[in-house]
């Protein structure tokens, strides 16, 4: 759904991709208007977590203007300048937040955010995954790690949450262009199993199952258990696992799985969970590419925001979310990626089965827009 341009305001419809749109609007400094937010639903208008996101954006920016219609079905957002600095925010327990990750390097002052809420969620990327897969990508763009950190103080499972994380991010004037077309081979597998307010044996059972699968491929598998007690365990029970595969070229793939929510009435067997997660990781490994599939959009964003130089990266098959994101990038920044399907040199690729096996690799090439962090202060 491309946007309609009304005197320099991008007008969108529907609540889908709300997060993307707000994020890009903030970065580009362009005003957006979103209409028909769940207008046909029984409970029309913005959800609590979306309002919460707007609050967070308001906290880290200066001069933002938000106008909501009475029913909450339309929203006008005019972004201000990113300030960053010390922020404490209690997030909504319904959905998570990854937006800060993208905004971090472009603030006026180094971001030091304390976020409270749910740390693991069904639909969103969990903190473990962000920590293990997303931060290395950012590190490639900013090159020098001075204070990039994500600390999990407390874990919190849905529905009640109670987790707390501290995210610190240095600021940069501009990002460097990135070329990465190799990702190497998986050399080690690490993982964390957390058990919140449940028996520690659950964790061990998960570890065993996951390890059982992974040992088929690699001997170097270590999975930690993180058994939280008391306040550190958040407010509601649950357990989950996240596995990270590190390649020889410092690319990280991550997969995760978690138990069903407490109120849902479903039961999750730890063994199933471990196996499922391991299979998901293997799937991720098969897809390959220089980044984890759920952070393709982040890579695309940072490539597009680089200096006016060519960046190119090879990623696995594009996810729907990334495709949407690329479209949005085009609308907000006018950046178009050159996308090529990369064929491996093997001649057998025409073979039906092999074609499926060696997943389609896509080479993304773009010229950065020369985005500079305008909010940073020079002395």
């Amino acid at each position, binding site marked *: 759904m491309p946007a309609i341009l009304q005197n320099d305001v991008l007008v969108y419809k529907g609540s889908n991709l709300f997060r993307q749109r707000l994020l890009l609007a903030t970065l580009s400094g362009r005003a957006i208007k979103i209409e028909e937010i769940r207008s046909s639903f029984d409970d029309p208008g913005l959800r609590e977590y979306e309002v919460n996101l707007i609050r967070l954006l308001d906290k880290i920016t200066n001069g933002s203007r938000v106008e909501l219609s009475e029913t909450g079905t339309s929203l006008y957002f005019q972004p201000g300048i990113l300030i960053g600095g010390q922020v404490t925010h209690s997030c909504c327990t319904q959905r998570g937040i990854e937006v800060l990750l993208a905004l971090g390097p472009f603030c006026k002052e180094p971001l030091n955010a304390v976020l409270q809420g749910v740390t693991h969620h069904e639909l969103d990327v969990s903190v473990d995954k962000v920590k293990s897969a997303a931060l290395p990508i950012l590190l490639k763009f900013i090159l020098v790690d001075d204070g990039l950190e994500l600390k999990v103080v407390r874990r919190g499972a849905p529905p009640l949450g109670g987790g707390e994380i501290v995210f610190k991010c240095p600021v940069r004037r501009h990002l460097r262009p990135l070329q990465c077309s190799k990702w190497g081979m998986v*050399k080690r597998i690490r993982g964390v199993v957390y058990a919140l307010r449940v028996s520690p044996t659950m964790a061990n059972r998960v570890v065993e199952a996951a390890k059982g699968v992974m040992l088929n491929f690699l001997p170097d598998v270590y999975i930690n258990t993180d058994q939280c007690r008391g306040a550190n365990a958040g407010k509601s029970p649950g357990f989950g696992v996240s596995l990270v595969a590190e390649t020889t070229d410092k690319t990280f793939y991550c997969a995760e799985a978690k138990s069903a929510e407490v109120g849902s009435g479903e039961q999750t067997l730890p063994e199933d969970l471990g196996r499922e997660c391991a299979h998901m990781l293997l799937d991720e490994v098969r897809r390959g590419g220089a980044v984890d599939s759920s952070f393709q959009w982040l890579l695309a964003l940072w490539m597009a925001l680089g200096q006016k130089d060519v960046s190119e990266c090879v990623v696995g098959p594009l996810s729907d979310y990334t495709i949407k994101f690329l479209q949005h990038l085009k609308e907000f920044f006018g950046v178009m990626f050159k996308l090529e399907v990369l064929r491996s040199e093997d001649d057998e690729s025409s073979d039906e089965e092999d074609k499926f096996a060696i*997943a*389609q690799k896509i080479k993304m090439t773009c010229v950065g827009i020369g*985005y500079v962090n305008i909010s940073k202060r020079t002395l």
Partner: protein
Amino acid sequence: MADEAIFDKKKSHRAKHAGRKAEKKKKKNQVDQSNLSARQRNPKAFAINSAVRAERQFRRREDVISKKQHIPLVDKTPLEPPPIVVAVVGPPRVGKTTVINNLIKSFVKTNVTSTNGPITIVTSKKRRLTLIECNNDVNSMIDIAKCADLVLLLCDASFGFEMEIFEFLNICQVHGMPKIMGVLTHLDMIKNAKKLKMTKKTLKHRFWTEVYPGAKLFYLSGIIHGEYLRNEIKNLSRFISVMKFRPLSWRMTHAYILADRLEDITSQDSIRKDPKINRDVVLYGYVRGVPLMKDSMVHLAGVGDMKISELSYLPDPCPLPSSEKKRHLMERERQIYAPFSGVGGIVYDKDAVYIELKGSHSHKQEDEETNEKQALLKSVVETTETVDEQMQESGFRLFSGGTVIYPDMVKDDKDLQNRESQNNESSSDESDSGDENDSDNDSGIDQSEKDTTGKSSKLPWDNNSESDEDDEDDEDDGNDEAKNLQVDKLYSHENDSDEIDEEHKSSDAEDFSIKWKEKLGEKASLAYFERQKTSKNIMKLVYGEFEIGNKRKEDEDGNRDEESDEEEIGGLFKKVTSSQKRKQADKEQLDLEECSYFYNRNKPHLRDWTTEENKKLIINCFVTGKRGADEDAEELLKLDDASDGEDEVYGDFEDLETGEKHISKQQPEDKTEEVGSKRKAEPTKSDILDKKLKLKAKFDAEYDNPDDHRIKGDHSYYESLKAEALKQSQLNKSVFENLDNGLRVEVEGFRPGLYVRMLFKNMPSEFVTNFDSSYPLLIGALNMAEQNIGFVSCKVKKHRWYKKILKTNDPLIISLGWRRFQTLPIYSKIEDDLKCRYLKYTPEHVTCNMHFYGPITPQNTGFLALQTVNNNSNEIKQLGFRIAATGSVNEINKSTQIMKKLKLVGTPLKIYKKTAFIKDMFTSTLEVAKFEGAKVKTVSGIRGQIKKALNKPEGAFRATFEDKILMSDVIFCRTWFKVDVSKFYAPVVNLLLPIGAKNAWQGMKTKGQLKRERNIKVEANTDSMYTDIVREPKVFKPLVIPKELQKGLPYKLKPKEKTSTLTKKNIKEKLSNRVAVIKSPHEQKVANVMKMLKTNFEKKREVQKASTAERLKKFKKQQEEEEWRKIKRQKELKKKICRHLSKISNKKQTQM
């Protein structure tokens, strides 16, 4: 003398023939000394004698090296760079136009009669120049400085440097220093040779201090027949054509265009109806700097911010010669292009046609090209409307008796179709590469229509989507109808050079290609197309829907107009149903929960990777799997083995320590080969050879360089940076090289060097009606967020040549980035606690902070400030130097924090010991409440604190102090008051002014100006006036010593009586107490006598004194006379003696 020669004779050298030294020499002579370096010949001379000195030498060398190093920049000049902008700048009547004319003549060998606006010429095989003259207006000077690569700074030598030159240099320094060459003219006006030499020297040195020592200054010694000497111009042109340029940071981040052509394409009819109607203007020019993005905002200097509503590239009107190997330029290739001055090759595009008569001899040779041109010209000249309009009007009939189809509708359909395919694709699995067949009957038809529109009307978006359409062609092969139509459309109209492009053509003719592909059986090409297709398809998957999305607005307008037509077409295209389908799909998407996982919430059934056949698929993704030939250690080892030949270093060997036997493993290798797919196993001969060569090169590099043995600094960091920058620049150039132009422009933007056409809609009519080509038309692209307006904080310094200081909130014209605008700045100073303290005036000779409301610009961008851009000669004379201040941007924000110091003053109402009630500081209790706890201070320095408000006098409060204060004390409370920056931002729109008055832009006036104009005078504050100070003498209270203290004092110090406490009354009392003394007659007589005697005596003494003085005087005189006589006598005696002596000496001499 002969004796000395004998003594000087030295023994001749006898070389040793035996012994240590002789042996040494013999050894030395064995080696050929001629091609050895001094270091090798005489190593001892280069040995380190003193460690300290060696260290110093090393340090110095490193210092010198590191001083030479610059931060490596990524070279962004494209393969075919845009013409270099050469600006000719100088005060009026120095000969700027003559220089341009002469340069053109020397480069292109044509005489140009009038030079107006930029003139582009081809000077060599790889270089083009755009010459532009700068008129005598500050606005133009600023714009020129922002876009010029090379500046020829002309100066009248007979007059010397004028203020304009210094101003221009200053402008350049602020906006990025271009290369500057000084040119002295009018040298023939100075007749005296010595004076000429002196002038040259002084001017040269003055120039060097401004630019850099050693800057090139040309001398044009005189004019013959209205031209400079040919030799000197030749020299100048040589210097210009070999000039090298360093990238400037602003221009390396922003695209810009110096427009060299302007067309007004508003319909004549609407202009006739309303001459003031907003115009649609087309501007042309070369893109410079960095690639220009399609939908970026631009700033038109002197007009304002604009959005490019249409951007397309055109064939180069002044192309570089083809890349054939030739030494010189052909006569035909020496082109000149200057629409504003009425010269340039024949150029035809959408809007107009240009004819140029190239010199006198060009008519004679009528080659094919000109014939063709003429033919085309004829057809174009006859048309009355733009091609755009023609295209819109030209209908197109598919079947006889069918409805007429217009391009607008077609676009609609295209949109629709893409949408459809998009939906299909996005719903299908990721693995399919989007190879759907639009099996609808009609799809082929509407494609062909699209293509016709795409080819015949060179609309930019069609240009871009061409490739896209071609893909679609590829997809539906089976459609015969489409094929037939395609034949028609392909060659129905001339096409641009893109078509010649190899890959383009081939993909175009995909339908036909099937046949010849089979015939030739070229598998490679098949694979190539395959790849091409898929890669395009994935782009379409992502952007397909989008490309037309841009045009959505227009289409929707069109939709409404064609409501009636739609019904008819509906039958053929099934439009209604498909659009409904699309809407349905959109609706489904509309309110989905967003999720960045690969599989959204509906988790698919995962494969069981542990099963054997699945496992095989991904086993190679792990380190335990099989690697590529160049990575695999085993393969590499094998390669090594093979190159080593027989000696089997890595063959079987026995580890002696462990006693383990290593046997070169054959079996596992075989096993992996079974498991993994086939890879290169046996190293070929060429591999080995390669490896050997590599090794040899490495060895050579290490051992051949004798300097390697010296101690060297570690420059690897710098080297790696440099290599990285180089690599990046190569990548930038090469990545999009073989992409077709339409797509390339989409992805990369319009790269520098392209000649583009920009359409601006709704330009003010004054821009066209008051257009003056002697003013540069600079179009600068704005990067992300630069079109927004906010508060800019910057550091600024008043120029030392500017006579006045600047006042806060006086309007100031600032040239920042591409823009020139007027705004109201507030000056401030950053205190130690990083607070911005408001300043009323700029300080002299130091930088201060400045805040203003203006366009957001990246940090560190330089700017300059003027108080007026008016060219009123009186004003200039009064000012002397027009640049008021220079500085750079520090920070951008959406709010400001400038604090003004505010002193609240109060007086004591009542004083207790250390507490006092203070009044007059505040007016209400509320105010006091706000300041509770604030620090206060008396003038004498006693500190205190505000405690609480009092009830009775409104605004009074209780305060405590560290000591008792006095009623006469004044109490201060120091506070800060936030000052807001007024939101005033007015771009300088000098290009809209009438032609004669373009240099007379007048924005907001200063308060002082207004007051002077209206003769308003401020009432003087009587308190500030000087008056005589009348001071009453201070009467101190008497010192009172307490009685207790008095008791203890010794008698001497005790106050004796109350004399000290004198009052008038007391004095009278005292006098009344005194007794009068009356003498007896005898006593009176005695006293009288005594008095007389005394008087007598005194008189006597006086006389005596006088006589003594006289006597003394006499005596002194006498003595002086005596002395005089004595001296005289002596003198005479001396004379006599001398005479005598001289006589004697004379006598002696004569004897001799």
